[in-house]
């Protein structure tokens, strides 16, 4: 195969990625889009195999192990555990890019040109940080590490020093051509990946995963420069852009800057004194009364939070929704962008319970139907429906976009107790005149509701 034909076939693979991503833009075409991208990948692999002198033993062994591990992880993972799986996959991608650059480095004889060295250093540096950073994100999400930020005195100084060290080692390994400087840089990037992610709280992981996703793409693009391959550069650039957009959407949904997420150590348990209680009377309701209210509503909006998914109550929720729909009630779901543990996570969890995707409304659409809604059912969500984010300039979450459930005629909050949410912020919604509290675990409340609906 001539290099020209090869280059064009790599371009074809990259086009398949672009078409695949475009088809991922609609639920109808998304599955075929993923398949198109996979075919593009296969093409790139075949083109590479045809013309390269590969070591079949090394290749076969690596591919066999990787394929088995990847398939087992992908087919067995629980949907609630999707964020940590994606974090792990990000990490492997970053690691692979760093290792390819490392393998190129050890086989180059003689002096390496400045530009080539720069691309190798970028691959190793970005790939290394992505790898260990993803491992820490995985450990935090999986509960192997505490979800609360790990901080210590001089943390930022140390990270800054390491960053300077990383750059110094990079420059040094170019000027001195000393392998020690090169490997030193690799080690520093691995350490930096760990230290940059440990001070970030568990609730900020959606941002971190999106950012690591972007970095894994950039590492692949850098490797594309090392081996001068356009498929890697294009594929890597697409993923880099995708991760950046998701990072931005997540920080906007939390009304935080990226710097604040990365360096703010948000959600520290210590010193988070519960805010002064808004006080006032709380009105409660029972599953029986709720069943009546829901049955006679025209439209019900359900606002699910992550607690619902942890309790695996989404199937119970669908049963309630099905029953209401049989009675002619329109049931839709209001999904806040940070309702899950990664972008779009809650939508996947509800899709798993066979809730049709056209019932899942995003933040803006939800808010526009709420004023014409009879009953809102808040299940396991708290901060994302807290009106003080809109009304109280003193509130720590002021400015965060919320689902404005208090626009609806009646709000029913299902909650185990009055305890404040993750951020330790009191929620005036609970004391609002239009709000009824149902104190129960989400799964139990939905089961009781199903029973109560039978008698209405």
């Amino acid at each position: 195969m001539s290099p020209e034909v090869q280059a064009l076939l790599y371009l074809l693979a990259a086009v398949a990625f672009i078409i695949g991503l475009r088809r991922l833009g609609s639920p109808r075409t998304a599955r075929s889009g993923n398949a198109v991208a996979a075919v593009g990948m296969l093409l790139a692999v075949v083109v590479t195999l045809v013309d390269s002198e590969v070591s079949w033993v090394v290749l076969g062994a690596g591919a066999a192990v990787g394929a088995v591990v990847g398939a087992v992880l992908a087919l067995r993972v629980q949907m609630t555990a999707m964020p940590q799986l994606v974090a792990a996959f990000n990490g492997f991608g970053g690691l692979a890019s760093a290792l390819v650059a490392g393998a190129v480095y050890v086989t180059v004889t003689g002096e390496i040109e400045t530009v080539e060295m720069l691309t190798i250093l970028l691959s190793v540096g970005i790939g290394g940080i992505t790898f260990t950073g993803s491992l820490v994100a995985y450990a935090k999400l999986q509960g192997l590490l505490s979800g609360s930020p790990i901080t210590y005195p001089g943390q930022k100084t140390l990270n800054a020093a390491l960053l300077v060290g990383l750059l110094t080692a990079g420059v040094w390994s170019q000027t001195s051509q000393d392998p020690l400087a090169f490997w030193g840089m690799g080690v520093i990037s691995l350490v930096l990946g760990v230290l940059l992610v440990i001070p970030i709280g568990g609730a900020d992981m959606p941002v971190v995963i999106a950012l690591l996703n972007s970095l894994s793409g950039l590492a692949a693009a850098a490797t594309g420069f090392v081996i001068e391959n356009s498929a890697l550069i294009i594929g890597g650039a697409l993923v880099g852009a995708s991760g950046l957009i998701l990072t931005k959407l997540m920080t906007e949904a939390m009304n935080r800057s990226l710097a604040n997420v990365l360096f703010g150590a948000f959600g520290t348990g210590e010193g988070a004194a519960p805010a002064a209680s808004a006080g006032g009377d709380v009105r409660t309701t029972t599953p029986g009364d709720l069943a009546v209210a829901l049955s006679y509503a025209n439209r019900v909006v359900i606002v699910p939070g992550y607690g619902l998914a942890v309790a695996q109550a989404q199937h119970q929720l669908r049963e309630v929704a099905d029953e209401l729909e049989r009675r002619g009630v329109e049931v839709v779901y209001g999904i806040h962008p940070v309702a899950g543990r990664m972008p779009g996570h809650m939508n996947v969890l509800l899709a798993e319970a066979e809730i049709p995707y056209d019932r899942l409304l995003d933040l803006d659409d939800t808010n526009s139907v709420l004023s014409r809604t009879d009953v809102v059912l808040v299940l396991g969500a708290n901060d994302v429906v807290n009106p003080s984010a809109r009304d109280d300039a003193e509130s720590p979450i002021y400015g965060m976009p919320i689902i404005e459930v208090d626009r609806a005629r009646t709000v029913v909050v299902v909650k185990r107790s009055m305890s404040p949410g993750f951020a330790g912020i009191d929620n005036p919604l609970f004391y609002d005149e239009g709000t009824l509290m149902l104190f129960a675990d989400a799964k139990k409340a939905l089961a009781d509701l199903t029973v109560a609906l039978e008698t209405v």
Partner: protein
Amino acid sequence: MLDPVVVGVVVFVLASFIGFELITKVPPTLHTPLMSGSNAISGITIVGAIIATGIENDLLAASLAFLAVGSATINVVGGFLVTDRMLGMFRRPRREGRE
């Protein structure tokens, strides 16, 4: 001929803009599959890993290449499979077909 690195930079910048355009149109409902699917695409580094297995008969290089192929394959196979599994759960709207 232009320096390949310059060509690479041109390709990279243009591809980034295509990426921004494409991803902005993806609805929030599909953000998780988008992430796992794009993650699988970043496994394109497998091409480099395959080439790396053949570069030299050096134990260190061979070990690095083996690990690179393994991790890239996990990324590619796992990424595409899990995305397919998730998208298979997205049910079409019920009213469809009745019309």
